[in-house]
């Protein structure tokens, strides 16, 4: 632990509790992750694996039914869970910003672009309208909007989808946050614009030293964008570590299956490989490993006990009995989080 992480999650759990308190959905369970300044962390997993809930948890903007059940979120050394609502508001947008799942709908149709890009600046830095607009103009330049001055006084419906997306990006970086969370920001875009937007995000990241959490289910984007990767399944991080290592030699059977399911040009297979079965119901998880029912290499122990998070192959963590026995020689140390 030489360097202090920008954001460190320790054993974080978020549950959705039904109104009667009878049904508890464990959307995020015992997640430990860390991200350094300027780094990109990709979070992948299928729909309903808790990726978005994790993002909402970090910003503490969960819907009323959700409870953060346990854990710590250290951001620049401060525990975000200890902060009051007012303190948390000063973090949002200012130090941690977020780009939402559907940036196309993220702009208020009634306001000009200038007012919307300027809003966080005015909220957080108390800047006047004129000053904030000057900054907004620079921001539009930074996200490559042509003729930013005229665009400032236009409304969202006068922009193309790609432009609106870049404007949402500009709003994200408007207060020079330390961490930007992008929750599937490219799903509503076509491929060429996706690529442009990803390049832009990378440039912004380099220019501002941003740390980026990139939530996606597209492994291709992960390979292109991310330094670190966390694979989520049924609310847990089943494998995390440097992207290259994981892509070269996935340790968890779920990661292996995910990587196998990407179709390749060189494939001679007639059918796409899929993972058999369905993800488990998060309200009633099986007793052992939650992936065991779909796992091809599961053995008895997998159905009996939940595997702990195990340090593996330098800088990685894996939640699997196989890896735990591989690493065998000693450090089957739960939640070692060795980095």
């Amino acid at each position: 632990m030489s360097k202090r992480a920008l954001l460190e999650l320790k054993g974080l759990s978020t549950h959705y509790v039904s109104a009667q308190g009878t049904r508890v959905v464990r959307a995020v369970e015992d997640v430990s992750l860390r991200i350094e300044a300027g780094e990109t962390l990709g979070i992948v997993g299928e729909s309903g694996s808790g990726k978005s809930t994790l993002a909402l948890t970090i910003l503490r903007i969960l819907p009323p039914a959700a409870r953060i059940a346990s854990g710590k979120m250290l951001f620049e050394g401060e525990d975000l869970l200890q902060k009051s609502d007012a303190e948390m508001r000063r973090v949002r947008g200012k130090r941690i910003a977020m780009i939402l799942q559907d940036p196309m709908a993220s702009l208020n149709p009634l306001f000009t672009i200038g007012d919307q890009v300027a809003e966080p600046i005015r909220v957080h830095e108390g800047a006047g309208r004129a000053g904030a607009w000057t900054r907004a103009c620079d921001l539009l330049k930074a996200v490559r909007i042509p003729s930013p001055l005229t665009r400032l006084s236009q409304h969202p419906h006068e922009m193309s989808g790609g432009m609106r997306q870049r404007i949402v990006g500009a709003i994200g970086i408007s207060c020079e946050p330390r961490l930007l969370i992008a929750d599937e920001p490219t799903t509503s875009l076509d491929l060429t614009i996706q690529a442009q937007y990803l390049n832009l995000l990378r440039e912004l990241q380099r220019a501002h030293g941003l740390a980026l959490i990139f939530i996606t289910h597209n492994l291709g984007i992960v390979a292109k964008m991310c330094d670190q990767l966390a694979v989520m399944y049924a609310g847990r991080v089943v494998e995390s570590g440097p992207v290259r290592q994981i892509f070269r030699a996935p340790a968890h059977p779920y990661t292996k299956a995910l990587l196998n399911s990407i179709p390749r040009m060189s494939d001679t297979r007639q059918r796409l490989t899929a993972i058999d079965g369905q993800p488990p119901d998060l309200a009633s998880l099986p007793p052992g490993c939650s992936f065991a029912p779909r796992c091809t290499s599961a053995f008895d122990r997998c159905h009996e006990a939940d595997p702990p998070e195990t340090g593996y192959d330098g800088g990685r963590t894996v939640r699997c009995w196989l890896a735990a026995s591989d690493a065998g020689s000693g450090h089957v140390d739960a939640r070692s989080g060795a980095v």
Partner: protein
Amino acid sequence: MAMRSEAVPLTSRPDIIKGLEGFPLVPILILFGIAFVAIFANVLAPYDPEVGKLAARFRPPAWQVGGSGEYLLGTDHLGRDVLSRLIFGARVSMVVGLTAVIVAGVIGTALGIVSGYLGGWVDQVIMRITDTWLALPALTFAIFLTAVVGPSEMNIVIILGAVYWTRYARVIRGEVLSLKEREFVRLAIVAGCSKGTIMRRHILPNVLNSAIVLGTLMLGVVIVTEASLSFLGVGVPPPKPAWGLMLADGKKGLMVGYWWLTVLPGTCIMLMVLSANLLGDWLRVKLDPQLRQL
């Protein structure tokens, strides 16, 4: 070639005409006319509306036998000029109607937004009060309130506002419930805006359209209620010339043939309410965000 020349008329319709399609020209002219008359009542009215000549009672309109150019629309039971009273009555209806609609709109919109956005017990409290309010018959409730505070033009405005805010609160709350799930509201939350800022800057401008449309529709209801209150003697106190009051005064003469005392103010009320409703209907379609964004 023939086909090409046939294709031309399809697109030849000028955009200006298309944009004005369904434009409620007549209602707007009527409303502007009434507003104009109300503003310049002092100049337009030939006589003092509150003082009459008893010698000239029940003169019929100019075009009837016994009528004269002196009193174009005849006189009432105190010899007051009906035309002058109608002109000044427009002022009462406009002032009371518009102010009451605005008072009701401000109260209702504010409570609707707070109720819808904050939810929880705040929502419960405001909505239960609204339900109770809506269960009371509007006119009876208004009469009760007038009995408590006493009739005057100012009090009528407050009473109408107090009676009709619930309609706004209901509609606006519904709008807010769907608005608050929209992405741009979530983006504002993510950007660190407080609840007050979000309600003021993001929710309010988006419900303003509905509030305005509702306002034009409510204008008719409010004017009728004001006229009813005046008719029942608990509205604008006489001798002020309110249309409802003129109806009440004139009803005794209806059977004897003094039709102008009731038909004329009745027509004025009807025209104004009809115009307000037609305008409201048109605005509702015109300002609908879904139609507008196309």
